[in-house]
Structure formats: structure tokens, C-alpha cells
């Protein structure tokens, strides 16, 4: 862990120093973007709706990993375990117990919270390196157990009930559902960042021993952070199970899924509110493109991309976007609107 500290120390604590210039561009961009995303289904075909739903699901997971890894510095590389558990809770409860989808989804989230707390309370005491391996182990052992249980249907998997609605309606439903969960997790992350919890998590990432000396109950905060992370990853898994209508252990407990969401949060910007969403958006769309065009060498291209990203963008995209002189851009935009009032003094505002 000690060797890892310098990298954390040199990263500017995101949000610690709020950009003094106006935050208006960010708000304008957000309003425009959300309007765009909400209205998008009106023009999109079924294929792209489904692609975007998957992108949103990955964005939810990347943001969830961000809470425990980006903020608290505990690299939960095996976080897909909650994706699988969430998917299986929805799968089992809807098929075996006839629980309605909405209730099953909530159960998936809560079940993952319970799982993360039971497992997390002991393993979050481990130092970061061991925690990382422990989460990978957890992912693998959970898959093996699910594979061998009767209630989960073993390697055959589960076909979740198909909703009695038109395909167009179903596409829209899952699109907006994933979008709503995504918006919620982004809002929660933003909330965490601005409150004591975010401060405590960043203190833990920076120097856990010092944080504990200052009276921060680090295990409590880490457990909380992982529980939040597990909740949203579980929801993502639940939505995915119903969306895809079929799940199997090998595909939902996949280590590749796990590492993918981790890479996306790093690529966008670990420890930032919007970075992971941006990272997931870009990488998932890129992956979709590569998969469609170069099926044979899909892994080769993605693997090389991953290596190149870590080499050239190790701090995340957001750190580059932050360098854009937003305040000048802001002044320019305002200037455009005030063309007509040219000649008046700026100080009038």
C-alpha cells in the first residue's frame, strides 16, 4: 500500500478546491445533455436503444466502483460480484417466488447491501492490496457457489419472465429505467462528495492511518461506501437480468465485466462525479464498434487499447477537460447573447 500512496498524493483531490470561476457552463451542459438523453428514444431505433441501455448499465457500475475505489482508494476489482448477485436475486425471485419485477429489483439492491456488509466488514480491514485480491476471490467463489446450487439452475442459467408488452415499449422502459438508476447514482455520488462522507473517504484514500488518528472511523466509512456501491451495482444487475431475459453464472459473474467497469472509471476520472460516466460512455460505444467491425481480433484491439489508455491517460479524461479554460468559454458564450448590447460596460452586470 505504501508504494501506492504517492500516486494518490499527487492526484489533486477532486472537488476539494472548487473551481472559483462560474459553474454555469457545467449546469448548462448538464441540462442540455439530460434533455438530449431523455428525448433521444423518440428518434432512435431498437438496436441503438438497446446498445445505449447497456452503456447506461455499465455507467452505473463504473460510478459504483468509483465510490469505493475512486473516493476511498479501495480498488474493488471484483465488484461485478454484486452485478451477478443482483441479477440472480431478480432471476430467482421472479421465476421461483413470482415476486413482481419492481419488488425484485429492490430486493436485488438490498440483498447486495447485506452481502457487501457481511463480507465487507471483515475484508475492508485488510490493506488495499489484499482487499483487491479478496474481491476477486469473492467474485470467483460466488460464481462457483451459484453454479453448484439447485435453486439457481446451475450452469443452465435462468430465463427471466418476458414482460407482456410490445418490444418497443420494453426497449423504452429499460432505457428509462437504466437512465433513472444512472441519474440516481450520479446524484448520490455528488451528494457524497459534498458531505462529510466524501471528505472522510478522501482522507482514507490519502492516508488511512492519519485519518484514523484524526478520529475517522475508517472501517465504518469504507463499509458504508462499499454498501452504496453494492446497492447500485445490484440494481444494474437486476435491470440487466430482466433486460436480457436470460442469465447464466459464467456471463454475469465475469471477471472481464468487473475489470471493464473498473477501467471505465479510471479512464473517465477516478474520484470525480462525472468521469466514470464519461469513461463508460466512450469505452462502451468504442467496444460496440470494435466488436461489430473486428470480431476476430476484438480482444486484441480492446486489450491494446486498455494498455494504451493506462499508459497515456492514467489520470483520467476529466483531468484534461478541467484544463479547458471554461471561464473564458463562459465569457464567450455570454458575449454571444449580449451582442446586441455591445458598447455597454461589462461592470453593469
Amino acid at each position, binding site marked *: 500500500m505504501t508504494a501506492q500512496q504517492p500516486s494518490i498524493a499527487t492526484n489533486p483531490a477532486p472537488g476539494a478546491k472548487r473551481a472559483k470561476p462560474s459553474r454555469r457552463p457545467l449546469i448548462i451542459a448538464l441540462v442540455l445533455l439530460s434533455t438530449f438523453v431523455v428525448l433521444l428514444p423518440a428518434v432512435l431505433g431498437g438496436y441503438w436503444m438497446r446498445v445505449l441501455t447497456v452503456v447506461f448499465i455499465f455507467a452505473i457500475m463504473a460510478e459504483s466502483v468509483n465510490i469505493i475505489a475512486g473516493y476511498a482508494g479501495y480498488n474493488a476489482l471484483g465488484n461485478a460480484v454484486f452485478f451477478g448477485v443482483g441479477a440472480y436475486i431478480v432471476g430467482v425471485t421472479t421465476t421461483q417466488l413470482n415476486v413482481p419485477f419492481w419488488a425484485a429489483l429492490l430486493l436485488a439492491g438490498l440483498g447486495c447491501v447485506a452481502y457487501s456488509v457481511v463480507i465487507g466488514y471483515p475484508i475492508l480491514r485488510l490493506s488495499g492490496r489484499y482487499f483487491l485480491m479478496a474481491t476477486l476471490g469473492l467474485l470467483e467463489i460466488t460464481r462457483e457457489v451459484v453454479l453448484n446450487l439447485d435453486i439457481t439452475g446451475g450452469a443452465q442459467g435462468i430465463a427471466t419472465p418476458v414482460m407482456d408488452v410490445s418490444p418497443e415499449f420494453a426497449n423504452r422502459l429499460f432505457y428509462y429505467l437504466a437512465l433513472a438508476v444512472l441519474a440516481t447514482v450520479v446524484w448520490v455520488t455528488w451528494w457524497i462528495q459534498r458531505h462529510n462522507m466524501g471528505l472522510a473517504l478522501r482522507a482514507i484514500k490519502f492516508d488511512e492511518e492519519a485519518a484514523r488518528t484524526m478520529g475517522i472511523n475508517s472501517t465504518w466509512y469504507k463499509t458504508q461506501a462499499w454498501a452504496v456501491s453494492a446497492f447500485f451495482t445490484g440494481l444494474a444487475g437486476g435491470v440487466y437480468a430482466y433486460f436480457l431475459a436470460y442469465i447464466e453464472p459464467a456471463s454475469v459473474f465475469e471477471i472481464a465485466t468487473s475489470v471493464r467497469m473498473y477501467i471505465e472509471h479510471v479512464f473517465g476520472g477516478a474520484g470525480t462525479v462525472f468521469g466514470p460516466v464519461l469513461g463508460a460512455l466512450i469505452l462502451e460505444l468504442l467496444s460496440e464498434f470494435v466488436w461489430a467491425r473486428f470480431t476476430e481480433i476484438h480482444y486484441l484491439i480492446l486489450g491494446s487499447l486498455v494498455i494504451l489508455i493506462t*499508459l497515456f491517460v492514467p489520470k483520467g479524461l476529466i483531468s484534461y477537460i478541467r484544463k479547458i479554460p471554461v471561464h473564458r468559454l463562459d465569457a464567450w458564450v455570454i458575449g454571444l447573447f449580449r451582442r446586441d448590447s455591445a458598447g455597454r460596460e461589462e461592470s453593469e452586470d
Partner: protein
Amino acid sequence: MGGELMQAVVNGLLLGGFYAILGVGFSLVYGVMGIINLAHASLVMIGAYLTFTFFSGWGLDPFLSLPIVAVVLFIFCWLTQKYILNSLIRRGFLGMTVVSTFGLNLVLINIALLIWSANYRGVVTSYSGVAFDFVGVRLPLVRIIILVLSLVITYVLYQFLKRTKTGKAIRAVALNRDAAQLMGINVYGIYSITFGIGGALAGMAGGLLSPISSITPFMGGPLLGIVFSVAVLGGLGNVNGAVLAGVVLGVAQVVGVYFLGTPWQLAISYAIFILVLLFRPQGIMGVKFVR
């Protein structure tokens, strides 16, 4: 009944020696640099494929091709560390190396798919079926050779780390990187050599595995759990610990399968892994590195 259990224990012991060499390279890399090499199991896969190629192309005995495989993978991993991973560590992004190695893992799998296709391959030698009978316990010759070679390789590694100048430098860097640098050790050079050795060990493990297992591009996945378990159980970077951990794991797995059934084999190794992490994160030997 008793005889079958006895056979299971013996199988576990034979397997354990191999597990040691499977995990020790990963353990060394992790112990010295803190790099979690997710591509380790795929390097094993590449080692197995190279052995298969030498065997089917030139008729070279799988055990004789070990040195060639080791050299090839040493060079490959040395270059990887020198040009990719070291550049990340230099800039303070040690945490990113795990992501890089995952990328490397994907690349290796795809390369194997392109060169050798997804078909199952195997190495069947003239002495593959030979086995000895010892008080009712079957001892296949191939598995005995694998065990002996595994132990020899780990012993050579131990002596290398203990006695040679490079080995001592590796241990010094593992114990205290800054102090080692002040003593004039080229830390990044040592890193490259360490990763190279890790790769060579993975390759030799692959070579040893080739006569007893089918070879596919995706064979690395299930091996990774064993690699983790051996590394954590033995203590990171601890060569003796890895041997003991391999044997413990091998016996536990085979005996566990005897009582619970084959499907639980992987679950058992992961369960051991997590239990050790929870209760004894410093490993069974209690020492982090070769002293």
C-alpha cells in the same frame, strides 16, 4: 474406501508441487513490485502452447523444451516490464499496472486464438500411460516427473534469490526500494528482471502442465484462483511458503473433491484463499519474503 482416500491424498501431494511453481512467479512479482499480474495465467497458457508447438513440430519432449520456453517468456516479460509497466510505476501509477496486465491478458488470449485456434490441444508422449503401483496407490510417471521438476525449479529459484548478486538485489528492492536505490541498485532494471523471472516461471508451469491437461486459449481463467491462493497462502514473495502452500492447497482440493464432488473443486481453492486472507493475511509461514 480408505485406499481411495489415500490415493486422493497422494494425488493432492503430486498436484501440490505443481501448484507451487504455478503460483511462485506471481507471488514473486507481487512481493517485489506490488504488481498484480492478471496475465500470469495466460502466460502459463502461452508456455503450454509453445511446448505443444515444439512437441508437434519438432518432436521435442515437453520436459526438454522447458528451458526454451523459459527463455522466450523471460524476454517477453522483461520487455513488457521495461517498456510498459516501469513507465507507469515511474510516474507513480502503480495501481494502474493491474489494468495494464488485464489488457495484456486479453491480447495474449487473442494471439493464442489467432495462432493456435480455439481447438483443444494436447501433448501425449510415449510414456504418458506409464504408472507405478505402490501399496495400492497409483503413481503416474508423468506426474512424478512434474513434481520433481517443480521442486527442482523452485529450489533453484530459492538459491538464486539467496546467493547470487541479482537475487540479493531483488530481495533488497522488495524490502526497501529507496534504501536499495541509495545503495546503487538499479531498481527499474531489477523490476524488469523480476517480471522476466515471473514470466519464465509461468511459462515453465505451462510446459509442465501440457502433458496432463488439454490446452485452450481460455485455460488461464480457472488457474488464476489457484495462483492467487498459493501466493496469499504462502506469503507474498516467499518461495518456501509457496511450496508449502501448493502442497496444502493441492491436498485440500483433492480431499475436498473426494467428499463434496468435482464441481466444488474451484470453490474450495477460493474458499481457502478468502479464509487465509481473513485470518492470516501474512500467509502460513508468517514471513513476507525470503530472508
